[in-house]
């Protein structure tokens, strides 16, 4: 499956794009997404440790199973307020 992943703030700038596309096996987890991004997007790799993943506007754990219907985003450390 081909996932679109939204990028924000320092990740958007590091990646040079507002979205990236990542191909994963159907039924892949957030952990698999992290591994794929680290391999295919070296500019994002150093940020991933502190980055959370959101699916359909909610934070999800590494065990969460992804699908192409979900809106997926990388959430680097937030600094609102």
């Amino acid at each position, binding site marked *: 499956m081909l996932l679109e992943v*939204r990028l*924000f*703030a*320092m990740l958007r*700038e590091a990646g040079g794009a507002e979205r990236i596309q990542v191909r994963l096996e159907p039924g892949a987890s957030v952990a698999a997404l992290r591994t794929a991004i680290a391999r295919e997007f070296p500019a994002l790799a150093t940020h991933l440790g*502190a*980055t*959370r993943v*959101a699916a359909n*506007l*909610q*934070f999800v754990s590494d065990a969460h199973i992804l699908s192409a219907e979900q809106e997926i*985003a990388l*959430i*680097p*450390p*937030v*600094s*609102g*307020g």
Partner: protein
Amino acid sequence: MIAVTADPIDLAAVEALLHHPEAGGIVTFAGTVRNHNHGRQVVSLSYEAYAEMAQARMEALAREMHARWPLYRVVLIHRVGTLAIGDAAVFVGVSSAHRDVAFDACRHGIEVIKFDVPIWKKETFIGGEDWVEGCAVHG
């Protein structure tokens, strides 16, 4: 009122929203843009949000606050875009019959916004600009 917005926060209007005939106490927190941070002279700040998720997370936060404390009104507002020194970037306001409840709930509201709502702050200071180091861990 729960909002992620580019518009300035109208303090008089939000105070009016917080009033309720059964409420005895209104506590508000406004986070304003400081002219310095980590020893650097700040010229302006700009906030970027994952707007749909920030709005959803703040609406969920308001529901959580209502469930946890006896509150009459909850107002949560975060601005996006470029702000000047002194501008209010974030506003949390609650009304309750009891002031202890209002203080606790308001403080919880700003803590969750700072740790858990996808908004990012970029500082423009004399000599450059940079994303502000944020909170990675769930608060």
